[in-house]
C-alpha cells in the first residue's frame, strides 16, 4: 500500500513538474514573440549623412514592422578589419555587416548567408513600381556585377550607394586668385590654374597649394590619367577579343615583350602623373582623407580631391561656398597626350559601396534579408540617397540637387587597365616621389621602376593563379553537393540555375588560370 502510494506520488510529482515546465516554456515563448527583436548592422561609413540616411530607413522599417528594432554599429575604419573578422568568425557579430576592407573576403564567405538565389527573385518592396517584377539583381544599375570578382558565382551582399571621385573647389578663393568662378574644363586649364595659385601664393605670402588629395583619392586621379593614356596600347594588345583589356593582359603583354616602358602611352602617363603630382602637397600619398580635408577647410588648398560621399561632411565643415567638377584629362587628338587616347575617358565601372552581408550566425537571417530588401528598394534607396548625400545604386533614381555633379559619367571610352594593384601598385607608389620631388621627372620615375617592374608583375600574376587554383579546388565540393541535392529535387529551378552557374564559372576560372600559367612559362623561356 505504502509502496503503491509512493509510486503514485512520484508519478503525480513527475506529471505536475512536466506540466509546470511546459507551461513556463509556452509562456516564455509567447513573451519572446511579443518582445522586440533587435537587428544590428555594422559598418564603417562614418561620413556625415550616411548614418542619418540609414537611421531614417530603419525608422521606416520599424514603423512597417512593429516589434522590430534596427540598431547601427559604427566602427572606425582603422580597426574595422580586425574587429569585423573577429566578430564574424566568433559568431558573436551583428546580423548585417558591411563587407569591405577584408571583412567578408573569400576566406570569410562561408560565414555569410549567400544571396545568390534571392537576387534572382523580385524585391517585394518594389511592388507597385516599374521594378515590381524585375529580379532584385537587375534593379541595380550595375546588375550587381563585381568586376573584381569575375568568377564568383555566389553573391553575399547588397550595396546601398555608389561613389565617384571629384575635385571640390573653393569658390571665394578661386575668385580671389583668378577674378572668376569658372572651374577648369581641360587638363591644360587645370595646370594653368596651378601656376596662378603658385604666383598668388608667392605674391601674398599665403601658403596655398592648388590641389589637396589623400592616399585614396590621390591614387584615383593618378590611375585615371594612366588608364586614359593606355587606351590605345590596351586596344592593340587585346588578345581575347574584348575591351577594355584587363590588367592581367597588360602584365602578360609586358612580360611577353609586347610593350616596354618606352611606349608613348606609358611615357605620356608618367608625364601626366608627374604634372599632377606637382599640383599637390609633398607626400600627399601618405595623407589620410581627413588630412586633405583639413588643407581645404583651412583655405590652404584651392581644390580638394574627395569622394561623393564626403559631400555632406564637407558642406558641414567648411564656411565658404564650393563647387565640384570631374578631374579633366587630355582630349583625344593627333599628337601629344591626345594621340594615346581612343576617346574621352568614361568614369568606368560604377563603384558600389556599403554592401551589407548577412552573417550566418545571425539569429534572424530571414529578417536581415527582409531589411536588406527594404533598404535597397527603389523608394528607400531614393530616400537614403537624398538624406545621406550619396549616389543611388538602384535604376530609375537620378541624383538630386548638388549630388547631380557627382553622377557617374559613362560617356566616352571605358578606362584601360590599371597598374595600381598588388605588388606592382605598391612598387609604383614607393617610387612616386621621383615624379614630383625637386629633381623629379617622369624619366627618373620610369628608370627606377624599369629593373623591378617585371618581377612585381610576375609575382602578382602568380599570386592570382595560385588564388584561382585554390578557389577552383574548393568549389569542386560545392558543385558535387549541389548536383546531389538536385537529384532529389530535379525540378528546383533555382538550384539548377545555381549548379549551372557554378560549373560555368569554374570552367572559366580554370581556363583563365591555365592561360596565365602558359603565358608566364612562355615569357620566362623567352627571357
Amino acid at each position: 500500500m505504502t509502496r503503491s502510494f509512493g509510486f503514485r506520488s512520484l508519478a503525480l510529482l513527475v506529471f505536475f513538474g512536466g506540466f509546470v515546465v511546459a507551461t513556463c516554456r509556452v509562456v516564455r515563448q509567447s513573451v519572446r514573440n511579443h518582445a522586440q527583436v533587435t537587428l544590428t548592422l555594422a559598418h564603417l561609413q562614418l561620413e556625415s549623412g550616411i548614418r542619418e540616411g540609414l537611421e531614417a530607413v530603419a525608422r521606416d522599417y520599424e514603423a512597417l514592422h512593429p516589434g522590430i528594432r534596427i540598431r547601427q554599429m559604427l566602427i572606425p575604419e582603422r580597426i574595422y578589419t580586425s574587429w569585423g573578422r573577429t566578430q564574424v568568425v566568433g559568431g558573436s557579430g551583428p546580423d548585417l555587416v558591411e563587407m569591405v576592407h577584408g571583412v567578408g573576403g573569400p576566406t570569410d564567405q562561408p560565414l555569410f548567408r549567400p544571396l545568390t538565389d534571392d537576387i534572382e527573385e523580385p524585391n517585394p518592396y518594389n511592388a507597385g513600381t516599374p521594378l515590381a517584377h524585375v529580379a532584385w539583381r537587375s534593379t541595380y544599375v550595375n546588375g550587381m556585377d563585381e568586376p573584381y570578382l569575375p568568377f564568383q558565382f555566389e553573391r553575399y551582399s547588397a550595396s546601398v550607394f555608389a561613389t565617384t571621385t571629384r575635385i571640390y573647389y573653393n569658390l571665394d578663393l578661386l575668385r580671389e586668385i583668378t577674378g572668376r568662378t569658372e572651374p577648369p574644363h581641360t587638363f591644360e586649364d587645370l595646370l594653368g590654374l596651378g601656376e596662378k595659385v603658385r604666383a598668388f601664393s608667392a605674391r601674398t605670402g599665403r601658403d596655398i597649394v592648388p590641389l589637396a588629395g589623400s592616399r585614396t583619392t590621390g591614387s584615383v586621379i593618378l590611375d585615371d590619367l594612366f588608364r586614359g593614356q593606355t587606351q590605345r596600347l590596351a586596344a592593340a594588345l587585346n588578345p581575347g577579343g574584348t575591351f577594355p583589356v584587363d590588367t592581367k593582359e597588360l602584365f602578360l603583354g609586358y612580360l611577353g615583350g609586347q610593350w616596354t616602358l618606352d611606349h608613348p602611352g606609358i611615357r605620356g602617363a608618367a608625364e601626366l602623373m608627374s604634372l599632377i603630382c606637382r599640383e599637390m602637397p609633398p607626400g600627399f600619398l601618405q595623407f589620410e582623407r581627413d588630412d586633405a580635408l583639413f588643407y581645404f577647410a583651412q583655405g590652404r588648398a584651392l581644390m580638394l580631391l574627395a569622394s561623393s560621399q564626403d559631400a555632406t561632411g564637407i558642406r558641414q565643415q567648411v564656411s565658404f561656398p564650393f563647387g565640384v567638377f570631374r578631374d579633366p584629362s587630355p582630349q583625344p587628338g593627333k599628337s601629344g597626350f591626345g594621340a594615346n587616347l581612343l576617346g574621352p575617358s568614361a568614369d568606368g565601372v560604377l563603384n558600389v559601396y556599403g554592401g551589407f552581408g548577412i552573417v550566418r550566425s545571425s539569429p534572424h537571417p530571414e529578417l536581415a534579408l527582409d531589411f536588406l530588401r527594404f533598404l535597397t528598394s527603389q523608394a528607400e534607396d531614393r530616400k537614403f540617397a537624398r538624406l545621406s548625400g550619396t549616389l543611388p545604386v538602384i535604376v530609375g533614381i537620378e541624383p538630386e540637387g548638388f549630388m547631380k555633379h557627382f553622377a557617374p559619367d559613362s560617356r566616352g571610352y571605358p578606362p584601360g587597365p590599371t597598374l595600381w594593384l598588388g605588388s606592382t601598385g605598391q612598387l609604383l607608389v614607393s617610387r612616386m616621389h621621383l615624379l614630383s620631388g625637386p629633381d623629379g621627372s617622369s624619366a627618373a620615375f620610369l628608370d627606377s621602376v624599369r629593373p623591378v617592374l617585371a618581377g612585381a608583375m610576375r609575382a602578382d600574376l602568380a599570386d592570382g593563379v595560385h588564388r584561382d587554383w585554390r578557389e577552383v579546388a574548393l568549389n569542386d565540393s560545392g558543385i558535387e553537393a549541389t548536383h546531389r541535392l538536385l537529384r532529389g529535387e530535379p525540378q528546383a529551378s533555382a538550384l539548377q540555375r545555381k549548379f549551372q552557374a557554378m560549373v560555368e564559372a569554374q570552367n572559366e576560372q580554370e581556363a583563365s588560370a591555365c592561360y596565365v600559367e602558359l603565358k608566364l612559362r612562355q615569357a620566362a623561356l623567352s627571357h
Partner: protein
Amino acid sequence: MAGPTAGFRPLAFCLLAVAARGAEPATVQAGWEELAQRNANRAGELFAAVAPNDPATREAQLGEAVSLLSAQPGTSGKIAASEQILEGLCAAAPGDDPGIAAAYYLARIHQLQDGPPGRPAAVAGYRALLAVHPESFYAQLAAPKLALLLLFDDVPRDEWDRREAEIEALIGRLATPESRRDTRLILASALIKLRRDHARAYPLMVACLESDLVVRVPHLNRLLLQAAESAEALGRPGEAAVYYGRFLTEFPHDSKADEVGRRMAALNREARP
C-alpha cells in the same frame, strides 16, 4: 496485469522519442546540404557518421572524400585521406555512380593538388572517363577540363593541332548542352588567344549565344563583345552590329555601353547601301 509501473510506460516512450529526436542519425542528405553551404568540416563529420550498414554507405564515403578536399584547414594529410577513400571506391565497384565519381575526383586531385607534374595523370583520368562512361554526369564535367589542359599547353604546332582536333571531335559526342557550351567556349578562347583564329572561334561562340546557354551575367557580357569583335575581324559588320545591339539590350547601364553604341552606329552606317 497492470502493475504499479504500467502508468510510466507512455512517459518513458515519450522521453525516448524526445531523446531520439535530439540525436537524429546522420544522413547522407544532411551531409550534402552542409557541403552545399560550404560547411565542409561539418559535412565530413556527418558523412563519416553514416552507419556502415546504411544502403547509402558508398555515397557517404564519396561525400566524406569530397568534403576532405575542401575541409579547413587544408592539409596534405586530408588530401591523402581523400585519395585513399576514392581509390577504395574505384577498386570496389568502378562502374557504379560513386565509383565513376571517385575516378573523376582522383583526376581532379592530380590536376589541382599535384600541380603541373600531375597534369598528365589528370588528362589520362579524364580521357578514360570519357571513353568508358561517355554518358555519365562526370564525363560531362571532365570534357571541358580535358580541353583546357590540352589546349593551354606549350606544345609544338602540329601537336596542338592534333589536340584541337581531339577536342573538336569530343564536342559532338557530349551528352549535355552545358558540357558542349563550356568545351566550345574553352576551344574558342584558345583559338583566339593563342592562334588569333577568329574564323574557327566565331561559330563556336555563336552556337552558345544562339542557344541562350550562357547563364552567368558577367560571362554573357564578355561573350557578346567577343562575338561582335570576331564578327568585325571577319568582315561581317551586320552580325557584329547584332551582337553589339544585344549587348545594349542586355546591359543598358554598363560602363562600356557608350562605346558599344558608337561602334554599333558606325557599323550600321557601314552596312547601309
